[in-house]
């Protein structure tokens, strides 16, 4: 009963349709839980319900030692369970990168100066110092994603909720993201279609199917495979 996060029989309806129909899930310290499932299965809805952005119509959510029911409970919970949105454009809303990264720490109650310092050290730790003064609107897609990650890591969360973190990233950026995530010592729930990435990160997996989460096993076997490569002439 000392799970960090536990969901019991959670039901969510959107426009009268049951998108989640009795979800049971728990997360322990240090776990990295992969969640897979097809488009529209309800993975994003699940993450949103977990931190109270989506209203549930049944079931209970426990997090960090107590039940979370009303907006005030969730507000406190969100400071410890940080959510990386599916689309980076939805997450960035401050003019410059450093301001955006400082937004969370400010909400945690840090002074303006402390929050800025925190933002700078977080950016530095991720090797993003060069972006610090840039305008968020003018970053490339991959850069935006990394800045979003910095923005939530600056809150020093205990749990990361990642919604398709490698979406629209090129191979190099994926590599960098995976390295960063692997180096972090926090529990994670990772929603992704990207099997190789999940393979490298996840310690456990669940499948979203028929509006329910069921346990799944991540395992690998060798394959003979036709693989397409693109080489330049002089490469």
């Amino acid at each position: 009963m000392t799970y960090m996060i536990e969901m019991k029989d959670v039901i969510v309806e959107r426009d009268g349709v049951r998108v989640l129909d009795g979800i049971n899930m728990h997360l322990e310290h240090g776990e990295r839980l992969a969640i897979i499932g097809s488009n529209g299965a309800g993975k994003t809805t699940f993450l949103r319900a977990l931190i109270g952005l989506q209203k549930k119509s049944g079931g209970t959510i426990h997090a960090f030692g107590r039940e979370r029911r009303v907006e005030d409970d969730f507000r406190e919970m969100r400071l410890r369970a940080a959510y990386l949105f599916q689309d980076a454009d939805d997450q960035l809303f401050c003019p410059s990168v450093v301001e955006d990264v400082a937004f969370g720490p400010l909400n945690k109650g840090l002074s303006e100066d402390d929050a800025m310092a925190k933002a700078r050290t977080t950016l530095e730790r991720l090797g993003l110092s060069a972006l610090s003064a840039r305008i968020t609107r003018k970053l490339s897609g991959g850069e935006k994603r990394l800045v979003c990650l910095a923005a939530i890591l600056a809150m020093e969360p205990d749990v990361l909720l990642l919604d398709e973190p490698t979406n629209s990233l090129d191979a190099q950026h994926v590599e960098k993201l995976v390295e960063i995530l692997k180096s972090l010592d926090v529990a994670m729930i990772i929603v992704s279609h990207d099997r190789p990435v999940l393979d490298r990160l996840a310690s456990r997996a669940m499948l979203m199917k028929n509006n329910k989460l069921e346990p799944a096993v991540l395992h690998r076997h060798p394959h003979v495979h036709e693989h397409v490569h693109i080489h330049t002439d002089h490469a």
Partner: protein
Amino acid sequence: MAHIPDGVLSFPVLIGGGVIAACAVALGLKKIGDEDIPRTAILASGFFALSLFALPVGPSSVHLLLGGLMGIVLGAAIFPAVCVALLLQAVMFGFGGLTTLGVNVVNIALPGALIGSLVAPMIQSATPARAALIAGVASALCVGLTGLLVAPALALSSADYMFSARVMIATYIPLMLIEGLVGGFCISFVKRVKPELLAGAA
């Protein structure tokens, strides 16, 4: 209460508002060419969407009027933009009315158009901080002017409304403050992120 519903105002006031609004909308439509319509319309959609957000303020929430910002960004096109937005709002959400459309357009768009055309050139050449200050004052003034227009629209309709109109003006004071602050920070954001947005006002 800038969206006066049908059934409150008297016919002379409705007709007066309607005539002024019709002229202003016609003028605004003349100013924008066919090729400017997509840009104006999509920006207007942004403003309309914004005005529909209930921003939580303490235990309550407010809707922004955005007259000042629209005036600064859209120029004279504010009249047709506000006109279609209010029509859609009356039809889809039941705020405002059909007969009061003209009066409501005047109340919201006229202050924006006047003050916007006055400050837009100043904002273009100002630093972000100064631009924010100017835009903040302009936004607050527009809300105040809207209040000062709603009140006589009521008072002219019937002497009975006189007292209510005075009370209503008082409720505009906190709104002026909020809209001034949000408008100022908004323009500071735009100035830093996409100053071109402030360059094209007609």
